[in-house]
C-alpha cells in the first residue's frame, strides 16, 4: 500500500471520528473500487451502500446535510459525478443564497480521476473536471489532491471548518501505489 492510499485511509478515519459523518455511495460498504480499500477500517454502520443513481445519491447527501449530518458522498470517478451535477451546482452550491442561512449545511464530496495504468479504461472513466467545477461552483471548495501530503490536511479542513462551506476532494487513481 502506497503513502497516498495510506493517507486516504487516515483521512477517512478522521472523518469517521465525527459522529455526524456518514459515508454514502456505491462500493462504500462492499468491495468494488480502489476507494473502498480506504474505508475498510470504518464501522459498517457509518457506510450506506446506494443504488447507482448519482443525482439521487447527491440529493440524499444534501438532505442528510440539511437534517444535521455531514455526509461524505463518494463518486469513484469524475465522469460518474457528472451525473450528480444538478444537485451539486443547482442545490449544494446555491443553498446558502437560497436559504440565507449564515452557516449552510455542508457536504464532503469525494471523487477521483480514474487510473490509466495498468489498465486504461478509456475517455469515459479518466476525466478531470476540477477546473470546470471550480468555475461552476463558486461557493464550494474544490481541491485536487496532487500529493499525499495534502490528503489529511485537506480532509481535516473540510471536516472541521465551521463556515458551512462544502468541499469536493479529487484524488488520482494512479497515485494509490505511490
Amino acid at each position, binding site marked *: 500500500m502506497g503513502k497516498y492510499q495510506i493517507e486516504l485511509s487516515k483521512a477517512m478515519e478522521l472523518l469517521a471520528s465525527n459522529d455526524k459523518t456518514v459515508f454514502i455511495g456505491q462500493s462504500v460498504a462492499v468491495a468494488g473500487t480502489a476507494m473502498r480499500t480506504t474505508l475498510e477500517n470504518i464501522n459498517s454502520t457509518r457506510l450506506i451502500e446506494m443504488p447507482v443513481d448519482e443525482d*439521487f445519491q447527491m*440529493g440524499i447527501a444534501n*438532505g442528510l446535510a*440539511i*437534517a444535521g449530518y455531514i455526509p461524505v458522498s463518494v463518486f469513484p470517478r469524475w465522469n460518474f459525478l457528472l451525473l450528480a451535477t444538478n*444537485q451539486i451546482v443547482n442545490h449544494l452550491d446555491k443553498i446558502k443564497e*437560497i436559504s*440565507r442561512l449564515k452557516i449552510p449545511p455542508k457536504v464532503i464530496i469525494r471523487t477521483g480521476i480514474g487510473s490509466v495504468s495498468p489498465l486504461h479504461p478509456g475517455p469515459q472513466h479518466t476525466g478531470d473536471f476540477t477546473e470546470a467545477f471550480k468555475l461552476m461552483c463558486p461557493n464550494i471548495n474544490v481541491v485536487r489532491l496532487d500529493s499525499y501530503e495534502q490528503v489529511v490536511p485537506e480532509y481535516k479542513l473540510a471536516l472541521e471548518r465551521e463556515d458551512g462551506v462544502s468541499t469536493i476532494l479529487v484524488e488520482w487513481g494512479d497515485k494509490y501505489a505511490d
Partner: protein
Amino acid sequence: MDTKWTVESLKNFESEIGDIFNSGKIKAPVHLSDGNEEGLINAFKNVSSTDWVLCSWRSHYQALLKGVPAELVKSEIISGRSISLCFPQHKVFSSAIVGGHVSISVGIAMAEKNNNSKNHVWCFLGDMTSETGVAQTSIRYAETHDLPITFVIEDNGLSVLTDTRNVWASTHLRYEEIKSSKVVSFKYKSKYPHAGAGVRVQF
C-alpha cells in the same frame, strides 16, 4: 398545520400577490396557486410543526399552511424569492429545479429515521415531476426502506403548457397505475398561467 387558513383566505393571499405582481413591483417570476387549496388543506391536516415540508417553485400555500407568518411569506415573495422559498426555522425548503427537492426530501427522511425521530417529511410535487426518474427512484427507495416521508402529488395535468399525459402518450400516470403507501394525490385546475398572474409585465 396553521389551522387559520381556509380556501377563501388562501385565495385572497394569492390574489393579492397577483395584483402586486401585475403592478410590476415584484422583479422576479412568481408561480401562483389556485384550485389546489382544498387538496393542500387536507394534506396539511397531518403535518405537524416539527415536520419537514419540501416544495417546488410553487410553494406559497405550503409555506402558509406550515405556519410561516403571512407577512414573512409576502415579504420574501416581494423580495424576488418566490420560486425558491426557504424558511429553515420552519423546516420549509423549496427548489426551482424540476425534481430537485425530491431526492433531498428522501435524504432528510433517512436522517429522521436514523435519529429514531417522529418527524415526518412531506414532499410536494407536480404531475410531470412525478413521472421523472428521480421521483420514481425516490418513491421506490422510500417504500423499500420504509422512510418517514409522504409524496403529495398535485396533479393539474400540465407542466407549463405541456400536457403531461399527452407527452407520455398515456391516459394514466405512474402514480395512478402503481399505488404506493408513500404517495397521496389530488387533481385540480388553476386559473393562473404557469408563471405570473395573467398580465404581461416588462422589467
